[in-house]
């Protein structure tokens, strides 16, 4: 069985599935039918390609980071520049795809969750471009921390609903979006932001993101004359990583998923779900979770808001279980250092999320050695993080 052909009956091995209130079952069945129908439809594909090219700015470049590679003195490092997309992150690949699907399904209203605001902004953009009404759920703690992103979503015509329940962060925003969907199931499309949730979301979001890996393969053929030795991506929910890996699952390439190590795994303040979590059921899927001994989901931490999630996509859980992808982590500190390095050596300010992937890439570049090449997906740009980094550096310098 080729790994590319999963899921089977909505499952990746034992992971995935549909653990949702009964009211959502007809909606998920309708969504799956509509998506499979759209996937086979040439007109849908043509329209998607049109928006990806002319609106989002695809294809993105694969850039040889010569200065950084030389400074490390190991493998050649190539950057997949998803940071150059409209909106500044890979999120738009998925939101354009799903918004087109929502339109095709005749849904009048789109809802979405957001953590730091990246997916919310990307959803609001796609909905504005396609003329759809849009409401975003955001934990009130996150909305406070990311006030500018709230305003950005509002500028783009979205209504932002703050969520006061639970830990008032991303997981609670997903809970509230699911509750909204249960309530307005007939006319509402839930546009999930990562490869998480009940089937068919993990499959569908992966498919929309897998344009990243397809481009990488082609670009590597042109630039390297073959495949890279390793590919690295950061894992929050796991969409940019799945989109990067999918094309290579059945090829001889080492794959690394980098989670947020926060203050270090021993500190218990991190978001490294696959590295340190255990199996459980949340947001409609069986996967790995950060949870306590009783099954209560825990609060997580990462300096990168986009990685701050206690679950992870079920396909990653499966790929971990069979050993196909190696899941590792980088701490806040390491991510900050990588962030600074890329700015200094290449004049590129990455988002803090892919800075984790870069940190790990820099670690293994020397081990892989001069004759090898590593591709790392830079899933977004760092403008949103400049203030956080500045504050972090001040705190770090006073501590030392």
């Amino acid at each position, binding site marked *: 069985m080729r790994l590319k052909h999963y899921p089977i009956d909505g499952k990746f091995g034992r992971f995935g599935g549909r653990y949702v*209130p009964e*009211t959502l079952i007809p909606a998920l069945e309708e969504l799956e039918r509509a998506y499979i129908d759209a996937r086979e439809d040439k007109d849908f594909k043509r329209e998607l390609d049109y928006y990806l090219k002319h609106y989002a700015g695809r294809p993105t470049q694969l850039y040889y980071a010569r200065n950084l590679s030389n400074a490390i003195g190991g493998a050649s490092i190539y950057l997949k520049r998803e940071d150059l997309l409209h909106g500044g992150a890979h999120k738009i690949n998925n939101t354009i795809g799903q918004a087109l699907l929502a339109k095709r399904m005749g849904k009048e209203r789109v809802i979405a969750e957001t953590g730091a605001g990246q997916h919310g902004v990307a959803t609001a953009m796609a909905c504005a471009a396609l003329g759809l009404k849009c409401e975003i759920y955001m934990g009130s703690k996150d909305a406070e921390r990311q006030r500018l992103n709230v305003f950005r979503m509002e500028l783009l015509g979205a209504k932002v609903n703050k969520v006061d329940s*639970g830990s008032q962060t991303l997981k609670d925003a997903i*809970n509230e979006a699911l509750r909204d969907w249960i309530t307005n199931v007939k006319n509402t499309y839930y546009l999930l932001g990562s490869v998480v949730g009940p089937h068919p979301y993990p499959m569908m979001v992966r498919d929309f993101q897998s344009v990243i890996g397809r481009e990488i393969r082609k670009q590597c053929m042109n630039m390297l004359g073959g495949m890279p030795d390793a590919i690295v991506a950061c894992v929050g929910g796991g969409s940019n990583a799945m989109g990067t890996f999918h094309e290579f699952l059945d090829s001889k390439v080492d794959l690394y998923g980098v989670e947020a190590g926060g203050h270090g795994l021993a500190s218990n303040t991190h978001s490294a779900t696959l590295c340190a979590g255990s199996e459980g059921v*949340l947001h409609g899927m069986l996967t790995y979770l950060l949870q306590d001994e009783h099954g209560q989901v825990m609060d997580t931490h990462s300096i990168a808001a986009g990685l701050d999630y206690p679950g992870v996509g079920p396909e990653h859980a499966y790929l971990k279980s069979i050993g196909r992808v190696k899941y590792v982590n980088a701490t806040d500190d390491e991510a900050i250092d990588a962030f600074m390095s890329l700015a200094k050596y290449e004049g590129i300010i990455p988002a803090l999320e892919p800075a984790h992937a870069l940190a790990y890439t820099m670690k293994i570049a020397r081990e892989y050695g001069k004759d090898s090449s590593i591709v790392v997906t830079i899933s977004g740009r760092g403008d949103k993080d400049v203030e956080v980094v500045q504050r972090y550096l001040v705190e770090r310098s006073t501590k030392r």
Partner: protein
Amino acid sequence: MSRRENPIDRRFRELVAKGEHALIGYIVAGYPDEHTSIEVARAMIDGGVDILEIGIPFSDPIADGPTIQRASYKALSKGITPRKALEIARSIRGSYDVPLVAMTYFNIVYRQGVDRFIPLAKDNGIDGLIVPDLTYEEADDVIRIAHIHDMDLIFLVAPNTSDERLNRVASVSKGFLYLVSVYGTTGERDIFYEYTLDAIRRTKGLIMGRVPLAVGFGISKKEHARVMINAGADAIVVGSAFINIIEKSNGSRDIMLKGIRELAHELKQATRGLV
């Protein structure tokens, strides 16, 4: 081997013999605190509740509205655990002959291990189990283990569940079948629409007597109970309306327990056909 009659089946049989319908009351274990939640259960039973549903709090209750979310959050912050919730059940069962149904999300069951949680719940006096995020496609193991331990696994259906699916779910649901009355989460509602009554009639017709039909989510008044019973419900489930009484009583124990007893009594009268 013929199965012993489960306490839930027996309770429905007794009620039918009396010409009554069932009132199912819901508490959140550990809300407002461990000890008081037992008193709340007692007040409900004294007021006439026929079957008690005990909610075991979960950090991410996606089928619940604000009232039960707040209660669960408070109970968790006071340190309630699944094990302590089952001890609360045991203590209630020690003094009352009332069937108990645990309601919790699948992660709580999965984390303890299905094959450990179910016998443990049974040992603590739980007769039935409702898991709102466990669909029957994912339930093979749970059904098998519940059967071994004589635990009634109660499934839910909704107004938009297709006839075909409803038929399949009705054939695996034990104790009763739980119809979610509305498009939405738990929480008191003032009015219900015709679609709820249509769903009750349709579900009742498709069950063809295999299990009793319980209807819940949003019911708070005797008038609601009446129309739903008239449409074909064998039982009504009330939760948030009780929790709202606890919230509104501002810590005054007597007012709270009196309010709960009175609401239970009023709703019970409706299930007797006396209003």
